[in-house]
């Protein structure tokens, strides 16, 4: 049984992600967010259930839909928001934006916006752990769409043959942009693919945070003890469209309604109240506090300056060795 404080911590983190994403959506509507956004709302249980098993020095890799992963790994809300708004105080000094947030100080190795490209990088971080002989692990997040990329197969195979300490976390939200899973795969469960690499594959309800937590706990412990990789498929659903302007008309109305009923946050709240870990009053307090923290992040981001234009030329290379005329 997970202890109460940990449960509340997880619940709080899920609220943070949801409130943060709702705020990003709102700012977007006000034309304050440049470019595009891919919101994590609806999938909170996956990032939180997995990251609740990780230490600060464990690694994660993330995707274009990455805000939730960052928050779950413990990144600073203000610096994430500032990056999304393109500000100098953002995690990447405004060079990355919503799809490329990283915080190496907490093992968040960055979000890649090339679908599937983070998977070999996660395997490489796991190889690094193995060669350095530490007890760290890597959690690698990607969607079901990414499991059709060659990098998925190449990396799971390599992680399997080398027994690497990595947990592959497939967030199966049924749609790769607008393409439904059944159009591009004959199988229903991505976890079945684990068989071909000789590693454990498990499918869990990705909207049930404790189910994710328990599956991840086993996989993380296994990896930490030298048992090698695991593929965990979390069945989930994004509450918004793929990205900006996407009304997601390709999703049947009843399907959306069914999934909204399975919203991971009310489900977890009901559970917490049932087991006496949370009261209605505590919940309200928590929500109030979380909303205030998100407002604080927005304030920080809004008040931050944009980078100087000449900064576009910095950070291409580590300068030490370029003693040239370039």
């Amino acid at each position, binding site marked *: 049984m997970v202890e109460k404080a940990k449960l509340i911590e997880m619940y709080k983190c899920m609220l943070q992600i949801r409130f943060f994403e709702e705020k990003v959506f709102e700012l977007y509507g006000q034309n304050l967010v440049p470019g595009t956004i891919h919101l994590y709302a609806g999938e909170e249980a996956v990032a939180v259930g997995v990251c609740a098993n990780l230490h600060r020095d464990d*690694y994660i*890799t993330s995707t274009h839909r990455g805000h939730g992963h960052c928050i779950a790994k413990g990144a600073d809300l203000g610096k994430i928001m500032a990056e999304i708004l393109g500000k100098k105080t*953002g*995690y*990447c*000094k*405004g*060079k*990355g934006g919503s799809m*490329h947030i*990283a*915080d*190496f100080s907490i093992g968040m*190795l*960055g979000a*890649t916006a*090339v679908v599937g*490209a983070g*998977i*070999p*990088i*996660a*395997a*490489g*971080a*796991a*190889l*690094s*752990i193995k*060669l*350095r002989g530490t007890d760290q692990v890597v959690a690698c997040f990607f969607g079901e769409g990414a499991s059709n990329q*060659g*990098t998925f197969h*190449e*990396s799971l*195979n*390599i992680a399997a*043959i*080398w027994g690497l300490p990595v947990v592959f976390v497939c967030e199966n939200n049924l749609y790769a942009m607008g393409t439904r899973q059944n159009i591009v795969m004959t199988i229903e469960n991505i976890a079945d693919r684990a068989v071909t690499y000789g590693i454990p594959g498990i499918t869990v309800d990705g909207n049930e945070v404790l189910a994710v937590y328990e599956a991840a706990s086993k996989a993380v412990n296994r990896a930490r003890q030298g048992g090698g990789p695991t593929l965990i498929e979390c069945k989930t659903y994004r509450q918004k469209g793929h990205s900006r302007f996407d009304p997601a008309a390709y999703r049947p109305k009843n399907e959306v309604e069914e999934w909204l009923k399975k919203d991971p946050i009310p489900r977890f709240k009901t559970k917490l109240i049932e087991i006496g870990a949370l009261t209605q009053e505590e919940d309200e307090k928590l929500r109030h506090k979380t909303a205030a923290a998100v407002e604080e992040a927005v304030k920080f981001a809004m008040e931050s300056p944009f980078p100087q234009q000449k900064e576009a030329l*910095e*950070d*291409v*290379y*580590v300068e*030490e*060795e*370029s*003693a*040239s*005329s*370039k």
Partner: protein
Amino acid sequence: MKETTVRDALREALREEMKRDKTVFLLGEDIGRYWGGAFGVTKGLAEEFGDERVRDTPISESAIVGVGVGAAITGMHPIAEIMFGDLSALAMDQICNQAAKIRYMFGGQVKVPLVIRTPFGAGVNIASHHSQSLEAWFMHTPGLHVAVPSTPYDAKGLLKAAIRGDNPVFFVEHKLLYPVKGMIPEEDYIVPFGVADVKREGEDVTIFATLYMVHKALSAAEKLKKEGISAEVVDPRTLSPLDKLTIVKSVKKTGRIVIVTEDCKTTGVSAEIAAIVAEEAFDYLDAPIKRVAEPDTPIPFSPPLEQFVIPDEKSIINAVKETVH
């Protein structure tokens, strides 16, 4: 000083750096105990350093480079080998979107000290998928450094600099150079990136050449000397960073340039060098810039066809004569 080959010089660099730094390791296809790499560069290293640090991989180029990227951003110094340069196409996302961009798009938070070694070049009758020279692709990618050594001295020194440096390096080897001999010091040294080498001094014309073409250019220069033409041969040694100063300085002295590269002509390395000379030394030119490069075709198999497309000494000599006269 001692005499050695490019192949042995590269292996010495790998061995010395692996001894010096435990975070240096190798990964690639067939680089381990049986083959020691398709061209024998890593022969003996698995026996010396173990299979953990000389890792045979599946045939998965994208993962070879991607795993290298992941290891590089978490404290290791991986050296990935891609068996043939043409196969780098399989790993383009990891090379050009990940390794090259990670530092920049994450705001300088991290270094990517990854070296990717691969052989380019035609001349051994292995046709279109094992012979092309694609260095322009990588020279065109901000965030990458590109090394193009032509001698054992440069190969060893540049590889050591690449391994000790903090940037991702695309390290080009030319298949025909592996057995080429030259002198190297007994003691430790590096060749810094971004410093061209004037391989032969001359007064009448600058010949810019890379990789195996450096040797053809030197041989051409020797023959031209007998006809009273003094050619200076400039080897950039790295295409990124590029030592523009040395190239421009040479052109300002000679007033003429013939650019010799093995990649195809259209938007090739030679196009960039020509543009730099036109921008920065136009007033010093006494003749139009000349380029000697491969025609815009894939590399054919049949020996006479292949020999036809590879720039040869004769075409270098002819181009020089056209600029001088």
